[in-house]
């Protein structure tokens, strides 16, 4: 047994020597070198992918792979994982933003419609709700939504769904494949409302995305984000953690046939900053924070963050 493990050690070290010929081979130092390897000076900055550390350059494609694989079963899985509550959260999110201007129908002279940018909104969940709210509640037929997603598969899913909505093939709904950290196609100061719902935790560089949001928003425009967050009740937190780490990957395996993607999902939720930390990140990007800065949903499983881009004259 011991000879076998020694053989394995030698075997691996021999292999590694081929990969890194500049390091001289030293006997019995193999495991040490294996431990040292990740902390070696590296040109690529590291980021996290669930609980694993990976190179920043890889994260985009790995997240892409996750969402490509879950795109088709996205809605069923959301219902099963959140017991349907995600629909209530999304409805509340849209209702609290109250998209669409109610005034033009009363005063024809006032400017028309909002320009909404829905980031990471591939399947159109939020976009359709916002257009419905604007049309039916505020009687605003001008408000436009641009759905942006980095993942073509998710966008395709959204396009497919948009056929069933009255907004299909109108100028009120458009799709855009874009990385939220760099959106050169969106001009400065052009967006009224920037939303990102359950997406920002997958971004490689969240601060860059926030800065980009600040750039594209008009002065007075609003950044609104709904994301999984930290539960504030210890007892409920224990139950919730048990559910997310045991049940969700299992449901993923049974329903979507993809355990790894859902394992990533719960790990990425765990790694996302707390409400206060994320609020400070939003503030750092230059936004004004109204009130406490976040609103907890279901005792903090999810939280809505808001920031308002300041208007120069008012400050």
């Amino acid at each position: 047994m011991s000879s076998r493990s020694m053989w394995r050690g030698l075997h691996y070290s021999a292999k590694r020597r081929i990969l890194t010929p500049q390091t001289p081979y030293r006997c019995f130092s193999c495991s040490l070198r294996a431990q040292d390897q990740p902390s070696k000076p590296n040109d690529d900055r590291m980021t996290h992918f669930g609980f694993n550390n990976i190179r920043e350059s890889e994260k985009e494609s790995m997240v892409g792979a996750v969402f490509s694989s879950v795109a088709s079963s996205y809605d069923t899985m959301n219902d099963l994982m959140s017991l349907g509550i995600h629909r209530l959260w999304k409805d509340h999110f849209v209702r609290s933003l109250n998209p669409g201007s109610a005034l033009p129908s009363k005063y024809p002279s006032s400017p028309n419609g909002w320009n909404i940018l829905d980031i990471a909104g591939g399947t159109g969940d939020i976009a359709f709700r916002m257009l419905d709210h604007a049309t039916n509640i505020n009687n605003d037929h001008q408000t436009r939504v641009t759905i942006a997603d980095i993942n073509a598969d998710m966008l395709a899913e959204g396009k497919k769904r948009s056929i069933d909505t009255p907004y299909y093939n109108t100028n009120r709904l458009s799709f855009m494949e874009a990385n939220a950290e760099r959106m050169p196609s969106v001009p400065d100061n052009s967006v009224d409302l920037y939303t990102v719902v359950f997406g920002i935790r997958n971004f490689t560089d969240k601060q860059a995305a926030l800065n980009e949001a600040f750039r594209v928003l008009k002065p007075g425009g609003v950044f609104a984000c709904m994301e999984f967050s930290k539960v504030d009740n210890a007892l409920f937190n224990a139950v919730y953690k048990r559910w997310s780490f045991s049940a969700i990957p299992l449901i993923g395996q049974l329903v979507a046939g993809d355990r790894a993607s859902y394992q990533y999902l719960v790990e990425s939720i765990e790694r996302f900053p707390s409400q206060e930390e994320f609020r400070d990140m939003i503030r750092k990007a230059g936004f004004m924070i109204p009130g406490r800065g976040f609103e907890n949903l279901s005792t903090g499983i999810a939280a809505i963050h808001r920031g308002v881009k300041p208007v120069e004259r008012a400050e």
Partner: protein
Amino acid sequence: MAQPLLLSRCPAAAASSRRIINPSSSHLNLTTTTITYSRNIHSSLRPYRESHCHRQQPKSTQLTPVARSSYSYLRPYHSKHHPEPPSHEYTNSQTTILSAALNHVPEHGFTLDSLTLGARDVGFLDVSVQLFPRRELDLIFFWLASRRGLLRGKVENGLFEDLSISDPRTETVKKGNELSVEEKVKILILERLKMNKEIRHKWQDALALMSFPSNVPLSLSELHALSSDILTLAGDTSVDAAWYTKRLSVSAVYASAEVVMTRDETAGFSDTEAFVERRLEDCNAVDGKIGELKQCLGFMGSTAVGLGRSWGLKI
């Protein structure tokens, strides 16, 4: 007992423990005996106090400006040791929008429309009303708080000094600085009611919104702030149970007079004025009756004790 003096010398500690000071202790410096007493304690406790201050300082610097202002806003009494807190805790941008929105209230009432139009007036967008997590309610509370600030400003600019009231019963003319606390309270209540003149027709809507169960605590604390302001400005210095009863009665009188005013069609609101006068007389009458009842019960008690003693009971 020594707390107010002690805290006033140590602002850092004062900030962190403001809430635990009870209302009566803030007025303790009125009696000389208390001053000497607390000074003794003050000097004997110096070493402890200074270390206490040092411990507290880092804590209070951690407080964000927002947190600190809400702290001072929460202080439910007036104190000569601390500067007056601002009448509201809104940021610059919020105040700009709200002030502009108040111009639209006579036409649109306390609604989201007023808020939106106000935001447009000062260069914000429709979506910028996201700055107000409580929406219309923020407009109402800004109205209340800013009017309260105006009332304070009026008194500071010599509201009473410029007054001279002729009393028809005694046929004398009283100068402003000779007025009693009760008379000043009446003047202040009427003065505050007069500020509601322009929005009188919309005020019932606002009252309805304020009496919505989830808004009741905030509405009551604002009402308390107003009654406390009125009494302090009138020069009330009670430090016993009367502190509470006076504030309660002024609150009750003001709140009911506000409702009466919304339906008052007489010129110069003479009905409302008469109503306020009658209610204040009622208060005095109830106060007198309670005093008489107490006196009566005291006599009966002492008689009973005397009677018992004369029968040889060991009381």
